[in-house]
């Protein structure tokens, strides 16, 4: 079972979990952007996501696993990679041959992870408490006001925007890199790379737009 322990297997596992999270991010953005376009649609989609059995008890645990797996694998790779050069160079000019983003995925990843902690504190834990601990009655109209309320604070809005900038950097290298890790190299590679770069900018900018829109339209 060499495939489970080799360096290439780890690369592919990192790539697949990353692609899964990229797919989830697009879905999350699609729902969130409705909060700007039509609050009723946002309420109805959020209610569906919050109460659908398939989403709650199958897709959500799979998502959690994907996040934790990607995070743990990132740490494992970082440790292994640091061990591969135990004596550092006195002079190392990484900026001459590679981008800062590609060399510091662990930093952008750690910031995104810290943001996830804040995001869980803001939305996921209150939602779990609301539904499963306090057993409040169903209210399909509560989601939009709760979302708007969260973005009253300029500090929270600023932190969200900062995290999305780091997410942009993480995606800028990670999304296109995942295809290289899986061996993707054909006549469509250039177009695919262009799409990944577009996605890396568009989605985080979209989230920043939503945060700022909600903050300034209280």
């Amino acid at each position: 079972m060499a495939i489970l322990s080799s360096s290439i297997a780890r690369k592919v596992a990192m790539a697949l979990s990353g692609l899964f999270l990229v797919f989830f991010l697009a879905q999350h953005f699609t729902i969130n952007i409705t909060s700007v376009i039509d609050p009723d649609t946002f309420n109805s989609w959020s209610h569906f996501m919050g109460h659908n059995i398939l989403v709650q008890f199958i897709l959500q645990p799979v998502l959690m696993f994907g996040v934790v797996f990607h995070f743990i694998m990132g740490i494992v790779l970082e440790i292994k990679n640091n061990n591969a050069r135990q004596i550092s160079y006195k002079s190392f000019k990484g900026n001459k041959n590679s981008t800062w983003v590609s060399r510091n995925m662990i930093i952008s990843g750690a910031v995104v992870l810290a943001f996830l902690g804040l995001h869980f504190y803001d939305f996921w834990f209150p939602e779990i408490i609301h539904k499963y601990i306090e057993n409040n009655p169903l209210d399909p109209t509560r989601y939009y006001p709760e979302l708007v309320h969260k973005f009253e604070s300029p500090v929270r809005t600023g932190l969200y925007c900062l995290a999305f900038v780091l997410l942009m950097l993480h995606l800028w290298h990670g999304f296109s890199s995942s295809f290289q890790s899986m061996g993707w190299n054909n006549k469509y590679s250039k177009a695919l790379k262009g799409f990944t770069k577009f996605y890396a900018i568009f989605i985080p900018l979209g989230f920043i737009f939503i945060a700022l829109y909600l903050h300034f339209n209280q």
Partner: protein
Amino acid sequence: MKLTLKIWRQKNATTKGELKTYPIDGVEGDMSFLEMLDVLNEGLINKGEEPVVFDHDCREGICGSCSLQINGEPHGPDRLVTTCQLHMRMFNDGDTIVIEPFRAKAFPVIKDLVVDRTAFDRIQQAGGYISVNTSGNTIDANTIPINKHDADESFNAATCIGCGACVAACKNASAMLFTSAKVSQFALLPQGRIEATERVLNMVAQMDKEGFGNCTNTGACEIECPKGISLENIARMNREYLSASLKG
């Protein structure tokens, strides 16, 4: 040209090393980097000091022996050249040049600037070959038609001289560019397909065993490679590996 050299000096594999400063004068722009080190060593020998030990052989960019980290980059600031082809005109009068050995756990320092790169030999021995009958019944390679694109790609991969600059440049000390070039040069040819499955599995297993890091696709290896080996080879090796693993 007057320069200040900061050179890594290390007595042997078990002792600690350090950067030592050597001023050098009279360096000509037309000198190669190794010729400049020859001048330095001549001066050190004349003074009764121990010369700086460094690897070199062909001095024309094809043997892959010279392996110096110069001012933070393997083979120095020029592109698509080895250290022996690096000319001193790339530097300016009064410059300070930091010279270190290639750093990786799998490339332990033997002395001063010389590192043990036999890890590459072991990766090659794990599968970087084809089994051909050489008892007199060898079939002429030209009798097998090969697609021009594949032949060119294979040749490009085969130009890897195994110098180790890819490992030295990579922040993770990964050897994937080297290994992928050796896998690719055979994987692209019909003669190499016969043992392709075992080859990629064995070579990657050996690469991991040697303690090289994991590739994170920074692309530093491709930029610093003196032979311009492409990252496409790593994608090909990944494909080959996945396919071989699924086969069994």
